[in-house]
């Protein structure tokens, strides 16, 4: 690792920390905009109870002190108790949700990368043939249709009409797991298909492939030894945004499949106006996205050393 690379890594990490800091700050000050504080909806609360409640959540201190406390709590990943779900810690709720969301997201990512690269390479190899057209039509359509629409249609067809999957996620086992995972992977898979297709097309026409062919390398050897490596590079640089996409998708997909994950609890916390939960979930999700983007950027540099560092 030379000094230029090291500088890039340090710069990139600094950028990620700055982003997380900004998200935390924006979250905190935006929440302060909400008039009347979080306890206004409970009308029967007396003045002393209100004061006690405020003391409990640390809302009686000056704003800037609250902000510093909040920053510290973010570093220690402790967001205090939930404001609506009595007796539950925000971090516990998030951890509980992660138990369901994490496997779902990982399986969706694996599905997306596998099928995206595969279909993209097939489309490129059969460039201009009917199979290429078919793959492109489907990937275009799945990019255009919002995930909640695909999800509702899939629930209607596979759960309600055909009855292939059980409707209860928690007790449904593997069968109930597959459908939302596939659903989450649709958008990233289509996107990766397009990326992989154009990357494969590029490398198929490049000089080193012609050289390899001139030397008499077999078709499979060229495909797996030379082309695939290069068509993977843009996929890796996309994996950060893909993770963000899967998290966003999970907000609606989890709700539709009634998965008790972090996405569903986030949406519920919005309708409940559970401010500490909203803040905690926002920060955790944003932090995950930023870290994943960082990892994918660094990984891209490892896979593709030719890339020019800023």
């Amino acid at each position, binding site marked *: 690792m030379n000094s230029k690379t090291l500088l890039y890594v340090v710069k990139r990490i600094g*950028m*990620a920390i*700055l*982003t997380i800091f*900004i*998200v935390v700050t*924006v*979250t905190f000050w*935006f*929440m302060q*905009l*909400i*008039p*009347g504080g979080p306890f206004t909806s409970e009308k029967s609360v007396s003045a002393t109870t209100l004061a006690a409640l405020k003391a409990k959540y640390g809302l009686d201190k000056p704003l800037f002190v609250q902000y510093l406390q909040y920053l510290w709590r973010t570093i220690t990943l402790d967001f205090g108790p939930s404001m609506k779900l009595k007796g539950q810690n925000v971090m516990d709720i998030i951890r509980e949700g992660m138990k369901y969301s994490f496997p779902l997201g990982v399986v969706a990512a694996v599905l997306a990368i596998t099928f995206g690269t595969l279909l993209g390479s097939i489309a490129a190899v059969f460039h201009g043939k009917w199979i290429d057209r078919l793959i492109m039509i489907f990937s*275009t*359509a799945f*990019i*255009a*249709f*919002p995930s*909640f*629409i695909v999800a*509702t*249609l899939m*629930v*209607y067809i596979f759960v*309600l009409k055909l009855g292939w999957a059980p409707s209860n996620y928690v007790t449904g086992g593997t069968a109930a797991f597959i459908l939302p995972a596939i659903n989450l992977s649709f958008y990233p898979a289509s996107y990766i298909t397009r990326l992989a297709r*154009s990357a494969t097309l590029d490398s198929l026409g490049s000089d080193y492939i012609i050289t390899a062919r001139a030397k008499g390398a077999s078709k499979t050897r060229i495909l797996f030894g030379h082309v695939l490596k290069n068509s993977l590079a843009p996929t890796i640089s996309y994996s950060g945004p893909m993770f*963000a996409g899967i*998290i*966003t998708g999970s*907000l*609606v997909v989890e*709700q*539709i499949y009634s998965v008790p994950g972090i996405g569903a609890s*986030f*949406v519920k916390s*919005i*309708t409940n*106006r559970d401010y500490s939960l*909203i803040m905690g979930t*926002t920060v955790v*999700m*944003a932090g995950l*996205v*930023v870290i994943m*983007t960082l990892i994918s950027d660094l990984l891209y540099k490892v896979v593709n050393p030719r890339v020019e560092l800023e």
Partner: protein
Amino acid sequence: MAWHFGKKLPFPASFQVDYDRPNIYDLGKATEPASQEEKSAQDKMRPSTSFFRDSVKRFVHNPVAMVAMILLLIIILGTIFIPLFYPYNYSTQLSFTNRWGVTDGTFNYLAPFTYSKTEQEAIANGESVWPHIFGTDNLGRDYFIRVVYGARISLLVGVFAAIIVLIIGTIYGAISGYAGGKVDMIMMRIVDVIYSIPDVIIIILISSVLRQVFKANGLENQRTGLIATMGTGMLSIFIVFGLLYWVGMARLVRGQVLSLKQQEYVLAARSIGAKPGFIIRRHLIPNSMSVIIIAAGLQIPSAIFTESFLSFIGLGVSAPMPSLGSLASDAYQSMATYPHLLLAPALSIGLIVLCFNLAGDGLRDAFDPKLKR
């Protein structure tokens, strides 16, 4: 044939004699001015073409983009004109308010192209009743007109969001690109940071907060003015777009300006003392306009996407005004029994977004071949 060696032979000098060729080597005629006919023989017959015409030609020859564009035009015209003559209103509950003046519960949840009891009687009596193309919803409102209105709202959201992005992004990007140096670096670092913020999560946070702010300030119940016609949900979508989504446009415009400001005419303008603001307004922005407008066009489906997403999780356009997202969200609850209520808005969103994407990609390829992916 009189060869004259003082003149250069036209190339290629073939030894084959071309009998139809006008005798240009005849010295007897050489001193005479060329006739109009001879002059016009020299004309290149291809008509002159402009950049715009060339691009339009490229676009027209792209069948997918053309079909998408025509469909889009039909949809836009439909959302404008269908409500003008359509016999039903998007908020009229037909079970209570109909032209027969009776209360009839069978108006609720009509299947497509079916009629309520009252209407069946009226038809039996020879009256003509306009069919409910998509049926009616749970409150007996004609669903077709609701979908049309929803599409109108969604399109409006998309267009306005794109305009906001266009204005902010263009100004910011042009200033950053033209200023260069330290100013450019700082401005672009700001863009980098905003770009790396996970947008959808922050959007949800901001719009859920803004809703509360508007509600507390009594703006929710305002009867007149901007907010009353738009609703708080839509307003927060615009604010979010103005805060977060202009960065892509700013990057694009900056790139354009960076390459354009090296051109001689900018140097010329600068040398006669034109101020930076004037050069940006007069030269740089107009010359990157085609790229900017196409990028803004591609922003529209993204805004529609975002709006429908927010509506679906309950943060979008407020009732009774429908948007395609909120229609789909409402219909989701009764999906098992009334799937067509979900299908109609769902497919409409997909169709509109798809058309915008395809037409936008086609336009970009046609107007800016350099940007082609």
